[in-house]
């Protein structure tokens, strides 16, 4: 790690001000992605602006069917939330499946969403739930927020403050883990809501998280795992690496989708 100046932000406005004051500054939330990158010297911010002590970024609220999660909420807090478990059990289960206990107790939903790792779990949930990403400047639909590998719609100085979505009627998430990193190699979130069925896939697409029109069409008429029998996805557009070829990922996506639907219905 290179030496770095540390700032503890007192509020979102304070963080925004610090961010604007320094070109090479970076926000740090749980630090579970940023700090390892700094340790291996792959990231070298001059200043770190710590969001962890901003009360306004914390907490989960469920009001009617509207769920709001502060950006600074840790994965462990999401996983342990009773209210959220009642509203959307699949979301809670997803949070509990991220990394290991250390990671879950430090990593945050805001950091995960802002980072948009193509193998991260939350982006699939947000996309399938039609969630809204709330920032200090605006609100962005998940559909428009995740724009590519580690790319988002966040502009200069923009800070994610919360995630909001409407609880679905049914939802399920299943992932096949990369044997080494344990991140998703194919993760599928299916959600059935008042506006229909959405299926979002993480870990597999060569441009990051995406929705599968084929599977959504099949499931819209029959929200049952059997509806996906015989369906194959093209390997085109799937990621390929030493752990999984595009072919294999295309297979895994369908298998995980079936299992996610079964979980949603079970």
């Amino acid at each position, binding site marked *: 790690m290179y030496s770095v100046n540390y700032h503890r932000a007192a509020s979102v406005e304070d963080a925004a001000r610090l961010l604007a004051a320094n070109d090479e500054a970076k926000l740090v939330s749980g630090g579970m992605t940023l700090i390892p990158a700094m340790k291996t010297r792959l990231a070298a911010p001059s200043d770190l602006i710590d969001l962890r002590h901003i009360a306004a970024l914390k907490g989960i609220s469920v009001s009617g069917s509207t769920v709001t999660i502060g950006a600074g909420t840790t994965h462990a807090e999401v996983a342990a939330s009773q209210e959220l478990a009642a509203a959307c059990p699949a979301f809670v289960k997803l949070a509990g499946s991220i990394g290991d206990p250390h990671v879950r107790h430090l990593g945050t939903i805001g950091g995960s969403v802002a980072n948009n790792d193509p193998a991260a779990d939350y982006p699939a949930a947000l996309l399938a739930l039609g969630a809204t990403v709330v920032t200090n400047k605006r609100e962005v639909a998940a559909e428009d927020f995740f724009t590519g590998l580690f790319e988002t719609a966040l502009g200069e100085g923009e800070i994610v403050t919360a995630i909001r979505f409407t609880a679905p009627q049914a939802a399920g998430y299943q992932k096949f883990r990369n*044997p*080494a990193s344990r991140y998703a190699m194919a993760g599928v979130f299916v959600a059935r809501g008042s506006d229909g069925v959405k299926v979002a896939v993480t870990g597999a697409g060569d441009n990051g998280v995406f929705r599968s029109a084929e599977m959504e069409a099949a499931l819209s008429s029959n929200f049952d795992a059997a509806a996906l029998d015989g369906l194959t996805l093209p390997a085109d557009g799937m990621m390929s690496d030493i752990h999984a070829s595009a072919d294999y990922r295309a297979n895994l996506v369908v298998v995980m989708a079936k299992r996610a639907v079964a979980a949603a219905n079970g």
Partner: protein
Amino acid sequence: MGLEGIGARVVRKEDKRFITGAGRYVDDMVVPGMKHAAFVRSPHAHADIESIDVSAARAMPGVIGVLTGREIKADGIGNLICGWMIHSKDGTPMKMGAWSPMATDRVRFVGEAVAVVVAETKADARDAAEAVVVNYRERPAITDAVAALQDGAPQLHPEADNNLIYDWDIGDASAVEKAMASAAHVTTMHLVNNRLVPNAMEPRAALGHYDKAEDHYTCWTTSQNPHVARVVMSAFYNVAPENKLRVIAPDVGGGFGSKIFIYPEEIVCLWASKKTGVPVKWVADRTESFLTDAHGRDHVTEVKLAFDANNRMTAMKVETVANLGGYMSLFSSSVPTYLYATLLSGQYAIPAIHCNVKAVYTNTAPVDAYRGAGRPEATYVVERVVETAARELGVSPAELRRQNFITTFPHQTPVIMAYDAGDYAASLDAAMKAADHAGFPARKAEAASRGKLRGLGMSCYIEACGIAPSQAVGSLGAGVGLWESAEVRVNMAGTIEVLTGSHSHGQGHETTFAQLVSHRLGVPIDQVSIVHGDTDKVQMGMGTYGSRSGAVGMSAIVKALDKVEAKARKIAAHLLEADEADIVIENGELKVAGTDKALPWFQMALAAYAAHNLPAGMEPGLKEGAFYDPTNFTFPAGCYICEVEVDPETGTTEIVQFVAADDFGNIINPMIVEGQVHGGIAQGVGQALLEGCHYDPATGQLITASYMDYTMPRAGDLPSFVVSTTNTPCPGNPLGIKGCGEAGAIGSPPAVINAITDAIGNNDLTMPATPQKVWAAIRAATKH
């Protein structure tokens, strides 16, 4: 046996400090004035060094010195050596390319050391290392050993045409050809033994301290054999004469072979300490471990196994290409030859065997001994081809093995080894019973009803341990003899120190060696201390590898104890006015047999040192040393049975049962033996299912250079093992011990792969059998 003697499940003495975080490792060592080193390493797999500019680095904050390969060479520090001479079949010696501790004009693998920075802090040293400017002219790289042998492949060393280090063979080629020609059946296979990264929990580290006033060097290093390190650094690298070099290997957090070898970093730290005038510490980070620890395995093999019409094995022919990486590491040459081809007979009576091995340079990290070293590769060949032959012949794999077992001992194989004792059918029976082999078809059918493919695979392994008789290994090319030494010091009040040349880096010697003393003298183990790992304390030793500490290291202690006891008996006989032959030692007393006369052990010790009343002419004191040179290898053997369930939709393999029935001869501490077997199987399952070292073939970059891409086994990947032992005591050493440190890693990979291939009905599967590969193999099998 007594509560703490041989055979007792004594809790490990050393674990208190390990599990409370109080172990003392090299990185815990602090010397006044100590500074920190960071290495500049090659980012290229193969390149010429055109220039190195250290001026900017020298001007960086905190920098004390920036040193390069040219300077170390100018100071007369030697190149690294390979300590085992192998001759090719045409009689020419192996082709050893020069390996300088820091590269001078060419780099041959990613991570090779090029320069070193010594600075006030680790961070200063790293910052300055980044400021060293090295101009490289890249050359094409080659990572695959078979491809490296082809004409036109990039050449690594001028000494080795076509990158061929040696072309060695063993056995009778014409007898094998003849048997193959008249065989009723020949099973042929192409097998790959995947390259592994050792991944000891503690990364390598070195602290070099040159004391100018004394003109003396001390090196703390993560070594499995500090005495060997001292000899090699003195005699071959000219760092310092032996009497002016002390090597200390304190607590070491796992070695698995990778810490046998002498690496550039410890040489550089010692030399740099003199050069800069400060003690210099270097601790590898995990990336450096991945890039520069000697890797393991990496063989490509063609094997043919011939049978007569009664399914008796008649001959085996093996051709192996072994990747040794960019340079020859300390024992690299012996691994694919004498530690490999000599075990190709397995547990079977095979009249004729011939094996050819080509060792090859490639632009990858050096490859050397890794848990099992050669024997896992041999076992994989033998046990995969035997299982496959059974399938081809349509007979039970268990019965085909049983029919071909060696049953009389001693047994001379066609590949040097003379097996001394064993009962292979006993292990097979024990394993089949524990695995409920007979119930497998029902379990398979039940799994099928859940959509799972269930398979069973076995492996009847044999290994050669306790390495090894000095004269024998000398005649085969080893640069040193492989005996062990020990000294038993009885203190004035009767407590005991055992100084041993074995080195414990996880094996539990502080407990097992003390159990031996307790067994012999009847003293509690907390009155026995084991001293190891310091060349100033222990005179000489060959260290720990090849499951040798019990069979060889403890045998040396037995010899020293014999001498101590003989003298103690004389003293007791004198004081008790009895005949020496009537003195028995038990429960901490020296007793006159058949009487109630006894002398407590501590009083005898006191008398030995007080020396007021000793037998005429006897020297005072009680301290004896011994060297033990083994008479033969030892031959642990056993049977492993693995049962798996494969999910055909994803290719995921779950090991649902793993049974190990081992014959380790006599056992000192069953709990520690079980721990060694558990750890060994975990490593073997790692190789079979998870661990694959992968270099990019075009650039020679290590793709699996972190845990994000290199899969280590986790607890969740493993079932609860069912382990047991049978016992044919080893006739070759006084304790009847065979050794247990490597068996798990040797025996398990073929059992796992045999099980998966049985489950999926496709024998074409390489390790690691990742879900992706298994899924593809299932698809390939169902296509036709």
